[in-house]
């Protein structure tokens, strides 16, 4: 479904990604793990068209999307849940969600999608008229996920969904991600909570200093000595 091929990305003169390749099949949950500064966010930004890679390409559903502007990529059916639950602080919950339905194909069906999001997160319906800035961290995270779903994505990218969440909410968030997949949305997940990420994902890529240094089924990676030492703190 998504294919990244030999991606090289620079910030100024600094090369952040080196020959990064990965694939995501339809219906999968794929995780990308790595330490802070390994290039995970840059990788997401390259897929989303926020950073232009120096070489390599990104294909989505058989079409090249690298070089397309971000809004065009969103129209293709890729959406993102940004790190730390970033939402529009001075809009209320409903307005935030409606913003998510901005792509033309999603706008027509926004009422229906809104209902679906409210079912997924009843809390958001309760807070419909509240400004996003007054939400708690967990609610904001729900709102960010809800907004991403409003565009009716085929593929949803998550940037550190568990960031700053209470353990109960971390658990909930991961359950929601699994639920989203059951609804037919493919998931690409960047996450520091490596254990949880590997538990819910099917496959994972390990990014170190801008290189993909390992990949494979999550069950295998969980057994790997390198992963256990470098990422699970064992």
């Amino acid at each position, binding site marked *: 479904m998504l294919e990244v091929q030999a991606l090289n990305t620079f910030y100024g003169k600094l090369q952040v990604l080196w020959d990064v390749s990965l694939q995501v099949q339809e219906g999968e949950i794929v995780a990308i793990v790595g*330490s*802070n500064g390994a290039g995970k966010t840059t990788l997401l930004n390259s897929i989303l068209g926020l950073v232009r890679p120096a070489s390599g390409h990104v294909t989505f559903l058989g079409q090249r999307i690298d070089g397309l502007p971000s809004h065009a990529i969103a129209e293709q059916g890729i959406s993102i849940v940004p790190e730390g639950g970033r939402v529009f602080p001075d809009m209320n919950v409903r307005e935030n969600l409606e913003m998510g339905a901005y792509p033309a194909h999603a706008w027509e069906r926004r009422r229906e999608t809104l209902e679906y999001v409210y079912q997924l997160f009843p809390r958001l319906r309760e807070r419909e008229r509240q400004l996003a800035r007054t939400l708690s961290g967990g609610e904001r995270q729900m709102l960010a996920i809800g907004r991403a779903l409003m565009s009716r994505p085929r593929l949803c990218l998550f940037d550190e969904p568990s960031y700053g969440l*209470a353990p109960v909410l971390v658990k909930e968030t991961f359950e929601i991600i699994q639920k989203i997949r059951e609804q037919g949305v493919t998931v690409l997940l960047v996450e520091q909570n490596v254990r949880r990420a590997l538990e819910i994902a099917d496959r994972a890529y390990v990014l170190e200093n801008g290189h993909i240094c390992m990949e494979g089924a999550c069950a295998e990676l969980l057994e790997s000595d390198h992963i256990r030492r470098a990422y699970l703190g064992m």
Partner: protein
Amino acid sequence: MPLLEGKGVTKYFGGLAAVLNVDFHIEQGEVVGLIGPNGAGKTTLFNLISGALTPQSGTIRFRGENITGLKPHVICRKGIARTFQLVRVFPNMSVLENVLMGVLFGKSDGHGMGQALEEAEKWVDFVGLSPVKGLPARSLTLANQKRLEVARALATGPKLLLLDELMAGLNPTEVAQTMELVNRIREQGITVFMVEHVMKAIMGICNRIIVLHHGEKIAEGTPQEIATSRTVIEVYLGE
């Protein structure tokens, strides 16, 4: 006499109680954890202690002195330093300059520039950022920006350090390194009060844990007591 003591501390936002009638005390040399669901009022409590907000009622005493409602810079100079949940480094200043700010302004006694630089270097080294000390703070990874905030706070010479979600966004290995950092801070004789969601860290380094829920203190005790408390499991930990 406790190092820090709060009595009946209350703060409303609009009609909503963010912190309600909370009593707490921190003893010299402790590491105390503050946990609770998102939106429970943890950061608000830190803002009340550090002077960013003033409580509507209740008093906060530091080393026996009433510090309720004092300005942030005054509270800092009395010996309470903090870090922020969403990092607030000075992005265009170098790492060293960030820390130098703490040395120059955080203490009531004056410093010569040479001596101040030396001390700033010491704290940069303490958190392990010496290799990047000349870089602008914005170019650091999130994890390192958090360390920088710790160094800047330590540079003000605090007796009490408030850490707000220092471990968020770190992988387990980085969490372990940061726990080690907190232990070294404690060894410096600095008392630590920390908001944290990473249970392994909280359970591993805290002497005592306070649990907030909807602005109220619902539990307090040793890590073992908290880990097995029915209420805490229900509202916070999940089974």
